[in-house]
Every structure is written in structure tokens, then in C-alpha cells.
């Protein structure tokens, strides 16, 4: 793949060309020249786009693509296409499937579906067999097949001894254990954040306490065991404080927050709209502010879209019965830019990948081209026509997005929006 990118503003603090507008020459997938006014002597394909900006390729640490088992929701191939058009060059795929991805063969199957794709698919294996929270899955064997982390998607490990053993065992081979922050006994039949809105709606609440108790437990365990722990999708102010304190103790801990949890509060639920039914639930203004501060000061390591395609049948029903989840890849950039500057947005979208075993690839001469192309300034109202996913359960539908993704250059391939 040979390409000449014309006049692109480079947003990459790790690049020596950060904040400058240059031409970038890519030969066989490798950046060979970055300079002003590069002549296209070899007649490479030229990319010349309005207000073009480029950064390192973006990463999402938590996506679900349905396959195997829920192909009616989404397939791996279409999921990767969605990621590419949304600017992501790498995504970590949850074991949110049927059967659950919990063996070497399962990881191999997932990998086979993503071979030769522009987007790198990083499979996450289940932590326990069938994600039932009873017996450890064959973590090392999955690791040898390419699993980047181990996580029972949205299923907390209720047995603390099992979590202790998981952390100890995975540390033998530097494996990353993920723990969903929720104490189910406290949640009971809860379906939304416990607060005044849940009280007014008569819906059972999920107290912030349910999350904070579980995180406290896991941090105690981590301190005892050593090892590497990632807590996906925290949602409360106290969770931020707990993790901040753990980082000060130098524990090997990272965490993420779902994008919708820093954009909405539970007040949007007043009409029982199931689009807003997500887990962890949308919380309060205080929580949102603390989460954003946590991102700014580095306590929270990454933002995820927690992209989870759900059929209309799982959403167009009574709130209690509706499925949790939203898609988010397509709107990620435009929503983040409503909250953060472009520089911070790019920082958020690029720094999590190292934790999930993928190297940073700064836009420098000699590096592989792993690039996202975008225009940070255009605004548009996000609607169904912008959705590439098979399922259309988008929490951000009708929001005004700031910034438009042109596409990606990654794995020696180019994907550009038409």
C-alpha cells in the first residue's frame, strides 16, 4: 500500500512533527517521509481532504461484536468495518458471545475472523469457564493464542477467593485480569442508578455502593496478590477516589470509563427511554464531574465506548425487561470532542492500547503507518443514517457531534469514508 497524505496537521505528542502540517509518504505500510510539499513522483494514491488532521490510530478497550452466537446483533467483520470508519485501528473484543470465548480454540476462531483486516482485533478471553464465575478458564492457553486480557464481560466475580487466585495465577505470565465492578447482592433487581430519579420512576435502584464495595474488595486483593488488574467501566466519584489512592500505593491498576457515563446523568431517564439503559448505570452530575476530573488527572486511564449492539427486540420493551447496552464506536470522536479539546480527545483515544498489549506507533519516519484521519471541526447531528453497526441501539442518537472521521491507515491497508 503506497499513499501520499497531503497537508495533514499531525496531532501526536510522541511525534517530532506534532502540531505541524506536513505531507506524509507511506510506502508498503511504512512512513518513509514527512515533509512540506512532497512531490508525488511515484504516482502514489493521494489523500487530500478538507482540514485534514492525523493522529496515531485509536483504540477501544471494550467492544462486543456478537459473533459467535449473536450474529443477528453484529458480526465480527461488520464490527471491524464500523471500527475502521469510526477511526479505530484496534479494538479489544469482549467474550460477550454464545458460546463464551473461554478457550484457545475460541480465541483462534475470533482471530481467524479478523485476519488481514485494517483493524487489529485484540481478543479478550473469559476469566472463568463459560463466564460462570466458578472455575478459572485456561488463561495461559488462551494467552498463547493471542488473548490480551481476561474478563467475564459485565459479570462480577462474586467469590473473592477466586479473584485472588485469578490475580495470582495470571501474574505468572504477566496476564491482565479484568473485574467488573459490581456487587450483585447489593444490586438486587436494580435497573438504574439509585437516586431521586429512580425514586420518582419507581424503578429499582443500583446504589453507587454496589460498585464501590467491589472495587474496594478487588484493590485489597490486588495489594495482597500483586499482579495486573484492570477495572472496566467505573461510574462513581468514590470509585475514582479509590483508584486514585490505589495508584498512589503503586498498585498495578488501570481502569476505564464508558463514554456515556461522562456525558449523561440519570436524569435523562425520566421517560423510561431504554436507549439510556446501560450498565453500569448513568449516575449523577457529581459522578460525571469526578469521572472527567479523573480522566484529566490520569486516574482513569482510558475511555471506552463499551460498544454493545443489541437488537431492537431487546430495547423496544418495558424498561425492566430491556437489555443493557449501547453502540458507541460511530459517535465516539464527536462526543469526546464535546467534552475535551482535540488534543485531549486524541490522548484519550490512543493511550490505552499499551495496557492491552499493543505498541504505540508515533507518526515518525520509519514507523509503521497506524493512523487515524479526521477533521476536528465539522459538526453534525448524529442519526441512524450514520450508524454502520447492524444494531441501531445508539444512546447518542440526535446529539450534535463535533468532528468527522475520514478513516484509517493501518495494517498496510486504507479505509476511507466515501
Amino acid at each position, binding site marked *: 500500500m503506497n499513499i501520499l497524505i497531503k497537508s495533514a496537521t499531525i496531532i501526536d505528542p510522541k511525534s517530532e512533527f506534532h502540531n505541524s502540517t506536513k505531507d506524509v509518504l507511506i510506502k508498503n505500510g511504512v512512513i518513509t517521509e514527512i515533509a512540506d510539499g512532497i512531490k508525488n513522483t511515484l504516482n502514489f494514491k493521494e489523500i487530500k481532504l478538507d482540514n485534514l488532521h492525523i493522529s496515531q490510530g485509536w483504540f477501544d478497550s471494550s467492544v462486543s461484536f456478537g459473533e459467535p452466537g449473536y450474529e443477528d446483533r453484529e458480526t465480527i467483520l461488520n464490527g471491524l468495518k464500523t471500527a475502521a470508519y469510526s477511526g479505530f485501528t484496534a479494538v479489544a473484543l469482549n467474550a460477550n458471545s454464545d458460546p463464551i470465548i473461554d478457550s484457545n480454540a475460541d480465541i483462534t476462531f475470533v482471530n481467524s475472523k479478523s485476519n488481514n483486516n485494517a483493524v487489529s482485533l485484540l481478543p479478550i478471553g473469559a476469566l472463568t469457564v463459560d463466564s460462570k464465575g466458578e472455575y478459572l478458564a485456561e488463561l495461559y492457553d488462551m494467552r498463547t493464542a493471542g488473548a490480551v486480557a481476561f474478563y467475564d464481560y459485565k459479570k462480577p466475580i462474586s467469590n473473592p477467593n477466586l479473584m485472588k487466585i485469578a490475580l495470582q495465577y495470571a501474574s505468572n505470565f504477566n496476564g491482565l485480569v479484568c473485574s467488573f465492578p459490581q456487587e450483585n447482592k447489593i444490586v*438486587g433487581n436494580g435497573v438504574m442508578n439509585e437516586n431521586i430519579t429512580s425514586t420518582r420512576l*419507581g424503578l429499582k*435502584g443500583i446504589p453507587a455502593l454496589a460498585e464501590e464495595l467491589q472495587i474496594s474488595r478487588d484493590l485489597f486483593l490486588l495489594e495482597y496478590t500483586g499482579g495486573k488488574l484492570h477495572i472496566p467501566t467505573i461510574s462513581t466519584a468514590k470509585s475514582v477516589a479509590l483508584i486514585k489512592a490505589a495508584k498512589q500505593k503503586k498498585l498495578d491498576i488501570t481502569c476505564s470509563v464508558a463514554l456515556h457515563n461522562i456525558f449523561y446523568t440519570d436524569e435523562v431517564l425520566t421517560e423510561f427511554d431504554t436507549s439510556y439503559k446501560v450498565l453500569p448505570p448513568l449516575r449523577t452530575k457529581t459522578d460525571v464531574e469526578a469521572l472527567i476530573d479523573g480522566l484529566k488527572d490520569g486516574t482513569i486511564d482510558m475511555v471506552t465506548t463499551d460498544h454493545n449492539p443489541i437488537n431492537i427486540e431487546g430495547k423496544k*420493551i418495558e424498561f425492566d425487561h430491556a437489555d443493557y447496552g449501547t453502540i458507541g464506536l460511530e459517535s465516539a470522536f464527536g462526543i469526546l470532542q464535546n467534552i475535551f479539546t482535540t488534543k485531549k480527545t486524541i490522548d484519550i483515544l490512543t493511550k490505552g492500547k499499551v495496557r492491552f498489549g499493543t505498541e504505540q506507533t508515533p507518526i515518525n519516519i520509519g514507523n509503521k503507518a497506524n493512523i487515524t484521519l479526521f477533521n476536528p471541526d465539522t459538526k453534525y447531528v448524529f442519526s441512524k443514517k450514520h450508524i454502520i453497526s447492524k444494531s441501531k441501539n445508539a444512546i447518542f442518537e440526535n446529539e450534535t457531534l463535533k468532528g468527522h472521521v475520514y478513516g484509517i491507515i493501518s495494517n498496510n491497508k486504507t479505509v476511507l469514508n466515501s
Partner: protein
Amino acid sequence: MSELSVNHLLGIKYLNKKDIQLIFETADHFKEVINRPIKKVPSLRDITIANLFFENSTRTKLSFELAEKRLSADVINFSSAQSSVKKGETLIDTVNNILSMKVDMVVMRHPNPGAGVFLSKHVNASIVNAGDGAHEHPTQALLDSYSIREKLGGVGGKKVLIVGDILHSRVALSNIFALQLQGAEVMLCGPKTLIPKYVDKIGVKVETNLVKALNWCDVANMLRVQNERMDISYFPSTREYTQQYGVNRELLDSLDKEITIMHPGPINRGVEITSDVADSKQSIILDQVQNGVAVRMAVIYLLASKIKQ
């Protein structure tokens, strides 16, 4: 002629003060009608109403059906203790099937909060919420306020106590909204485990001591403990609950003033209220039942008149 500000009755929180006044004035008229020898008016001869009860109910269902028949509406009934989801059919499909038989209005009881709100967004009929999970039971709150108004001459400025299982109660929530809209003060009393943690943010007082609470109020609305909605034991035993939150004659006699006792039914005699209290002059429990028919007639009549437009 005045009309309601809404096309559905989904909850008290969607009404304004004028709506409630209009419903009460209309109910006054219908209360007079149902005490005549011929208890029927021909107002809704061209309206068909479906009563869809996805949860067990005796008095509310009877009360609605009677209200509809006394307005001369055609009535069809559908009852299923299971929600439609469990049978594999969605709620929207169930209701649309019934509506395709040319039904104008749906009265629905459903175990899930927001089921009425959800339905109103997806089907083309006027919806009356007859109770949706722990969300709202607006006609119960209206008849409760109507009964207070009848007994005490008004609701504004009155101190109303709601005792018992607030956590699982749609009656409590609708009553709070209705009473506040009319300018009454509301206090909740019960074990902390049965009071929503953040309910004080709605602007109600919370008291865990029943004697103090009864001394404060003009009216006490005693709720039933809803064991069927509990996922865990919220108190050790019924006996212990009654010791702390049951109203009995002795307790009422110890108060400085004579308060009014209400109960939305069904009563668990000897648990939240003793028989000598339930059957006493202070109790307006049976008035509530009678007023329920008049208030429901008013609600249905006012919503139907909007359909006719």
C-alpha cells in the same frame, strides 16, 4: 368547557393542579349520579374500553369496570397474571392486537414501572395507568385526595402521613405527587429498609417512629406490606413489623386529636391496622372505595371527550 392537559393518565406527575380540580368537579357530578336509583349515564355509548390487567387485581379492576359501565361504554376485559413478555409476545403486539378490534381506550395494570408511558409512545389509544409496578397508581391517589377533600373540606395545608412499605408502593408515590400538587404536607413513616434512600429529595418528611408521625398528621394512609414485590426480607417478622408500624385503637386514643384513617386496600387486618380501627368512625376506607368509582368515571369521561374531538 374545560379539558385535561393530557391525553393519557399515566401518572400524577404528568398532571397539573387544574387537571386535578377538573377531575374532582367532574367526580362530584358522577358521585351524585351513582347514588341515584338509575346509576347510569349514556355519555360514552360510542366508546370501547379494554381493561388489560397483567397483574392480579380485584378492587381496582371492578372499580374501573363499574365506572366504564356506568358511563355506558363498551367494555372488554383481559387478565393475565403473567406479563406478555413471558409468553413470548411483546406488550406492544398484545395491545395492538386488541386495538385492531377498534378499541378507543386502554386501562392497564402492569408489573413493570413505566409500562403505561412506554405503551403511550407506541400505540394509538388513550392509556389509563391502573398501576405500573412501583411507579404510579394515579386513580388511587386521586380518589384518596378526593376522599380527604370530602372528609376535611380540602387538601391544601393538610398534613398527610403515609405509613408502611413505601419502597414497593405505587400508591405512595402517586399520593406524594398528588398531595404536593394540592399544597398538602407529606410525611412517610416505616422501617428504613422500606423507605427509598433518596425520597427526602422529593420534598417529603421521613419519620421512623410511628407515634411521633401520628401526632404530626391530620390523616394517616396505611399501606399494605407488599411481600410479593420483595426480593429479600426487609424486616424480621410480621409480628415485629406490627409492633412498630401497626395502628391500633390504643395508639389512636393516646393522640391529642382525632385523625382520619385511610387504607387503599386490601387490608391485612391485625398487621398494619387492627379491625377496631379499620371499622371505626375515624376510618374512611369504604368511602375511598365508593369515591373510586366516581373518580374513575371522571377520568375516563374527561379522556374520552378528548378522543371525541
